[in-house]
């Protein structure tokens, strides 16, 4: 059993990933009519989500979702849910690879063909998803620890930068008297869904060690990141400027100026650690998917896993070929809605199971 800090790493990874996967852009679509209220609503719902998930998973130590559901819900429902979440986690990973290859093409290697980048990523990911679950958690730890100083650095730079338009930030706050919009809300709630990988990782992480103050700390940190995610780009690009950028956060970091480093543009350092953490997140997603597949007990003999993985490769390649750069944002809006729905489903199922367990005992 691993300690509680690994849960925090999972949560953190989810937080920082939002930069690459268009969460700020989707929020800025409604920046004049409802984003602020959506963020407030997302903070409330996200807090409840974290609390419920921690409570329920702590009741089922060392169990994955299959062991939690077995004998408590009908067999067909359990299998259906596992297949559903398997597909969900697979799609998450697939969509994130597509976004990541776009980032690489735009910012790092414009000359390298898109498909070449994609296949390098795929090779690494396939190599990594078949490793042991604990090993992947150790990798997560390494990546998160190396990511934290850079996030701090950017934040300190923001708070000490004299060129930030503070007025734009105040101006954006004035648009709070609007009803929350569903797309903005689902994008903002994604920040808080870092716990949902636990359907597999609960087997290895001891959730009981997580105290109330840890939950509050995680929650406050989530709020902080969500707010910085939304307000820092406005401070640099202006309220009217933010919706125009494609990768708004990367453009924002590029407009920060550093005189005293080897590297003039800090964007590269951010990009490198961002690619690191995104790759680890994708690996975790697909690993979750493969592990869920193992719980289905299809006479599991190693062969089936490779069939599933080759299926992953084929479908992702098709998605990668067919998807148009302009449509990615649209797919991400759809994905966040779908993601919010799946997490709602997870919470309902877990609450049902825990109530049933309480009645049985």
């Amino acid at each position: 059993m691993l300690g509680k800090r690994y849960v925090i790493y999972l949560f953190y990874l989810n937080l920082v990933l939002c930069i690459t996967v268009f969460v700020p852009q989707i929020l800025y679509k409604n920046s004049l009519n409802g984003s602020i209220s959506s963020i407030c609503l997302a903070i409330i719902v996200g807090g409840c989500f974290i609390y419920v998930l921690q409570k329920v998973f702590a009741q089922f130590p060392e169990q994955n979702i299959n062991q939690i559901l077995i004998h408590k819900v009908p067999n067909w429902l359990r299998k259906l849910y596992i297949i559903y979440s398997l597909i969900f986690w697979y799609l998450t990973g697939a969509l994130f690879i597509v976004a990541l290859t776009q980032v690489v093409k735009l910012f790092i290697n414009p000359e390298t063909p898109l498909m070449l980048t994609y296949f390098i990523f795929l090779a690494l990911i396939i190599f990594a998803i078949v490793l042991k679950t604990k090993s992947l958690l150790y990798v997560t730890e390494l990546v998160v620890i190396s990511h934290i100083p850079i996030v701090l650095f950017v934040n300190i730079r923001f708070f000490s930068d004299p060129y930030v338009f503070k007025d734009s930030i105040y101006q954006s706050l004035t648009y709070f008297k609007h009803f929350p919009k569903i797309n903005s809300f689902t994008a903002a709630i994604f920040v808080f869904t870092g716990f949902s990988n636990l359907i597999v990782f609960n087997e290895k992480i001891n959730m009981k060690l997580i105290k109330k103050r840890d939950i509050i700390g995680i929650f406050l940190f989530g709020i902080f990141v969500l707010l910085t995610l939304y307000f820092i780009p406005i401070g640099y690009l202006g309220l009217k400027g933010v919706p125009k950028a494609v990768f708004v956060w990367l453009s924002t970091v590029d407009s920060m100026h550093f005189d005293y480093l080897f590297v003039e543009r800090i964007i590269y350092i951010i990009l490198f650690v961002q690619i690191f953490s995104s790759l680890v997140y994708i690996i975790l997603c697909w690993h979750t998917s493969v592990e869920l597949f193992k719980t289905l007990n299809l006479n599991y003999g190693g062969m089936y896993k490779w069939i599933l993985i080759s299926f992953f490769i084929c479908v992702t390649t098709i998605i990668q070929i067919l998807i148009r750069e302009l449509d990615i944002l649209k797919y991400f809006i759809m994905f966040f809605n779908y993601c919010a729905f799946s997490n709602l489903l997870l919470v309902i199922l877990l609450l049902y199971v825990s109530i049933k367990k309480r009645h049985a005992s």
Partner: protein
Amino acid sequence: MRFRSIQNNYDFQKKSLKKYDRNITFYFLDSVCDEKKITQLLITPFYEYESFSLYKNYLESLPGWEIISEEAIMVEKMLNGNVILNLDNINYSITLSNYSSSAVSESTEENVLQGPKDGLNGNISISLNMIRNRYKKNTLQVEKYIVGSQSKTNVVVLYDTNLIEINVYRNLVEKIKGLNVEVLQSCGQLQKLLINKKWMLFPLFLTTERPDRVVNNLSSGKIIVLVEGTPWALIGPATFFDFFKSMDDVVQLSIVSKFLTSIRIVALLITVLLPAIYVAVISYSPEVLQVQFALLIAGSRISVPFPSYIEILFLMLMAEFLIEASLRLPKTISSSATTVGGLILGQTASQAGLVGDIMIIVVSIVAISLFSIPINAMHQAIRVIRYPIIIFASLFGMLGVIVSTLGILCYLCNLRSLGKPYFTLFNNS
């Protein structure tokens, strides 16, 4: 008397002598006692004296004798190199300790500034003597196995029964018992057999020649394996970061030792990543650097006719040749080899315009930082691991560096040493 706590050790000896239907019994640990002295001072007189009372008087004339009744104290005395002699239900303890110092040589591979200087010995009993004399606890267990169908090499396993995890112990002992090999001659060979994989780069066991490192690891619950004939000990389960600790860190004050450890980690990062990042930045994304710096590098490369990866591979291979040459040559010639190789070749290569000046600086930094890794086995592994990253960097630029580094990290994190994780930042207990 049973001496239950130490009787299973293979160096524990019990000898009974008989004269006129009366018994005397000796108990001692032969690794810390001088057996010659025992024969000379205790056994021969026993047969020479006519009566037991005379022998008793003789015993009481020996230096360092004592009468002891408690078993715990006796065990402690034995660990200190005393012989316990049971005569008419009276227990004498007599100091006949043997602290090998004449046969002990200084450790040559792992140098320290201020720590103890001794190195282990190829003779197991001398090594055991050194370890026992540094770790006087009755929980230290010594077990002997014989490995090799033809060489019949003695392999000794040491551990502290209170601190060891039973799974780790079982894992190792089963592996040693299951070894199928004709000739076993060294620790490195044993490590290879224990890992038992075809492709292996990183050492999963710590190899050391220092008894103080052995004792340090014993006290933190590790298992030590000694092999007859080599002055090295295998320590397992090891973690990646154990290879970056020098025994000087124990001697130095805490902040200094933390500083030294972190310097070694920085050196590791530099030696692994700097050549690859250089290639990636020069060939793919020079816009990363400050303008003046980028121009400086471009200026130094103005006469170089090759792409940067050929330049760096050429120079890094030269550095490897230099290391190999100075390693195998006799000491008197090796200094001239380094002069020719390092000074003359480096200087003229840059004057002839074959490599940029900055490239020579980069390769030298990489070589120097490689040398700061304290343990040789890890040093060699790091030497090898740089090349795949350089190749990836020259194929895909920064992306290649990221992907290959992450791949190596995943591989490292997936390794297990005796069932324990090999590469974790913090302790997981």
